């Protein structure tokens, strides 16, 4: 009986670890997707490139905080076409590292990580009034 219980416990440990990683991956993917979408839409509503940059940083930080994640670890890259003008496409790419060595309730330790990535393209309104 003891052997069976021990074997069961040993088999369950990697299962719990896998669950924690999968949950973190899903959370990271949701946060990255939300961050990219929010950032793209906010950047497309900005009046110039500088304010768009500020809007992207703020939107990404808010989206990650909403999911309970630290936005400092996120990698954000955004580009706009030839110039920031009506009809231009704003592309935002957000990447987030999910640490593999972690478990539910125990937290995570430094080690290898899997990067989740999300991208969103928003277009500046063609008929938007601009300064």
């Amino acid at each position, binding site marked *: *009986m003891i052997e*069976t*219980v021990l074997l*069961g*416990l040993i088999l*369950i440990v990697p*299962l*719990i670890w896998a*669950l*924690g990683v*999968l*949950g973190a991956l*899903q*959370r990271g993917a*949701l946060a990255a997707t*939300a961050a990219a*979408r*929010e950032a793209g*839409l*906010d950047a497309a*509503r900005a009046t110039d490139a500088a304010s768009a940059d500020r809007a992207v940083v*703020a*939107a990404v930080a*808010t*989206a990650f*905080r*909403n*999911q*309970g994640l630290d936005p400092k670890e996120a990698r954000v890259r955004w580009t706009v076409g030839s110039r920031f003008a009506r009809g231009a496409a704003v592309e935002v790419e957000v990447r987030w590292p999910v640490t593999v060595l972690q478990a*539910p309730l125990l937290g995570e330790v430094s080690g290898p990580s899997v990067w989740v990535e999300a991208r969103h393209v928003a277009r500046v309104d063609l008929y938007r009034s601009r300064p």
Partner: protein
Amino acid sequence: MLNRKHSPAGQFGSAAVESIFAMVFIIVLLLGVVQVAFVLYARNVVAASAHEGARAIVERGSRSDDAASVALATVRGSAGGLVDDLRVGVDLQGENAGAVTVVVSGRVKSFGPVPFPIPLTSTATSTREVGLP
């Protein structure tokens, strides 16, 4: 026959009984693992639904009903009946400007070794464009 001859009296079938106890213990553990998985999934769905609700207000207008209906539809569409007692709170912070905050709370149904529903709450904030109605 040979085993029976050498087995101490009163211990026939003890291995089977012990196996059953061990199996019950392991099944309870496995159910606990499954419940942890469902709670993790439900937490992510509730967080995403709060964000979808906040986004709905920004995209569709300033009605809090929009946020509530979108958030509830997101949870029901993604988690089915896993989360019940859903409540959606919306804070618009003024008429025309500022942040939109949506709070979604609910309880994950219990079906494993944890005998009570597990509460979940998630908050999402989105910014509205200044000056839009």
